[in-house]
């Protein structure tokens, strides 16, 4: 998203919302309509629904809540939590805290990038994982640490980190097979 003022993007709110009930978004908007100071909460709600902040949804919110697009974009890009691009099913937060840094977080990063075949910030082609950094997860005595879907893993070695990823992949395959069967 280079500039929020351009409108050449062809996706519409309906197309990004195909998988999601538009009513859920409407509920969110109605909950915060007229509530002062709620922009961050609205964006957190959107991200919970979509996994990221889709541009057409932000434009929709701008119209519905009467907020300037620039203001929404300003807040969305200020905070580390918000993402403007889609993420995989499982979000990996690799801790970059001081304790993790001095205990070799860079080696975990190398191993994860290699295992997933992505760079830091990237999403795997099958959209199962997105690898991102977190400033600090507050599990410093278990450094180095990563968090996947709210669960912290540590202390990690490059091999342990790879195993966590492989285990989740295995579970994914199993659940797919079950659905297939």
């Amino acid at each position: 998203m280079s500039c929020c003022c351009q409108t050449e993007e062809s996706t519409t709110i309906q197309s990004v919302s195909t998988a999601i009930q538009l009513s859920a978004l409407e509920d969110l908007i109605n909950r915060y309509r007229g509530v002062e100071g709620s922009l961050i909460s609205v964006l957190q709600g959107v991200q919970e629904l979509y996994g990221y902040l889709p541009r057409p949804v932000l434009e929709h919110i701008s119209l519905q809540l009467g907020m300037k697009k620039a203001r929404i974009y300003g807040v969305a890009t200020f905070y580390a939590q918000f993402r403007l691009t889609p993420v995989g099913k499982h979000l990996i937060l690799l801790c970059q805290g001081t304790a993790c840094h001095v205990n070799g977080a860079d080696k975990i990063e190398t191993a994860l990038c290699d295992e997933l075949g992505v760079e830091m910030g990237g999403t795997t082609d099958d959209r199962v994982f997105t690898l991102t950094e977190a400033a600090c997860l507050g599990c410093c005595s278990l450094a180095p640490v990563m968090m996947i879907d709210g669960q912290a893993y540590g202390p990690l070695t490059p091999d342990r980190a790879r195993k966590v990823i492989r285990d989740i992949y295995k579970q994914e395959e199993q659940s797919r097979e079950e659905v297939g069967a």
Partner: protein
Amino acid sequence: MIVRIGLSSCGIAAGGLPVKEALALVIEQQGLDWELQQTGCIGMCHYEPLVDVIHEDGSINTYGNVTVDGAREIVAAEASGTALEKYRIATDREPNDCLAGQVRIALRNCGTIDPESIQDYINSGGYQALQKALNQMTPKQVIEEIKISGLKGRGGAGFPTWFKWNATRQEPGDIKYLICNADEGDPGAFMDRSLLEGDPHSVLEGMVIAGYAIGAATGIVYARAEYPLAIKRLGKAIEQAQAHGILGSNIMGSDFSFDISIKQGAGAFVCGEETALIASLEGERGMPRLKPPFPSQRGYWDKPSNINNVETLANVPWIIANGGASFAAMGTEDSKGTKVFALAGRIKRGGLVEVPMGMTLREIIFGPGGGIKDDKKFKAVQLGGPSGGCIPEALLDTPVDYQSIKNTGAIMGSGGMVVMDETTCMVDLARYFLNFTQDESCGKCVPCRIGTKRMLEIMERLCAGEGKPGDIDLLEMLGQQIMDGSLCGLGNSAPNPVLTTIRYFRDEYEAHIYDKKCPAKQCKALITYLIEPDKCKGCTLCAKKCPVNCISGEAKKPHVIDQNLCTKCGTCLEVCPSKWSAVSVS
């Protein structure tokens, strides 16, 4: 009998949930009439998962590093009336070395009660301080008690708590706000997370008392989104308190009404600054503004607002219940009471410790902390996170109080202590912190926004072996200008890690610049990995594990690293069997 398992983020990360399931299963299978409880973190994170077995007579066996199999064995042993020595790390009569010397006030209930049970909190004396404040004390008397205690803000700045409360109380107006800063942004500190996960009611009780003292009807907790479990447990605690008449209208039958809500932060270090936090609460970009007006005059929605840190508030009920004088009896002249420290980094026993102020760094690191990992040599301790500084070995006997720490060039901060050994490069560490602050600078003040960027470029150059004579002077000059020309604490303190490492580890900077060497052997551009042919037995382990396949050689013959392809990840050094130690780094 009661079986209690520690399930804070650290306990869960260490594998606590499967252990809990195993305990539940085996207790059921054996038909035992035992109660299985969860609790927060006692602070001995390196022993997680931790299991306490509490007998009918009140005696306790504490087991550490419990595995799923271990859980079954422990239940079997305890059911037959014996302890399982293999996992036992402490009893109620012989507490673990980590707890020796600790005085637990803020952490009084962490690891001993179920954080999701208000009844547990009440049974351990919870909400009695609130009752005392509401029934027997005027708001002025509450503030006076806090003044006697000498409690200072535990979040970083160390400002006297009573003064802020009093200033907010004295402001005219009916609408005032009490804000709890739970946006623990300092990487390396985790006491607020542990408190919220382990004893959320103590923070709520502190908030209601503070609200009563300053005359606020609304409390807001600004919590980090990165702490999902803390938010969940705090939310549950708020619901329970509302159901018990501890939050809401006419609390405990008094005239005082107060309620609390949670607002999630969205990840910005600068929001630890009060005015930036308020901007974020109002849904805006978290950018600080000039003070005065102080938040106590014009804060949230321009109303008088008081902001306290989690740990500060957790101390409040204890002070009201036991009297300010008992709190002030601990600590030093300048710094009263106790402080929670988060021990992390290259330390044997990482975790949380709460000790009286005035203990020396050495006593904390080598006492409850157990000394340095792998018995390596202590090099420095970083206090105060990215705003703090590194304290070298020569100053290890510095007492930990606000002024003594400030004199070293570091700050107390929120109490994060990251310990470094000989394998940590101080230049790289300073670069790491600067990278953090540069990234987190909100961009409002030019010296902070651009100055930290320029400093970071120099630091990156040093680590890449491209340092130039004069770089150290340039860093010092820039650092001073950034500190002088920035509005808020972030810019005022961002150069601290660089300036303190130059002050105490100048030789390492000079080695990087003039000798193109990294004495700690960490900066990749300045080191080379070599396999010594006379030591290598050709076991092929390094070649198999090398992530870029740059090691070649036949089995049982010396191997060679292709220096052009080597990414200097250090894997070969790690995997080379210690009996041969054929990989060297220079």
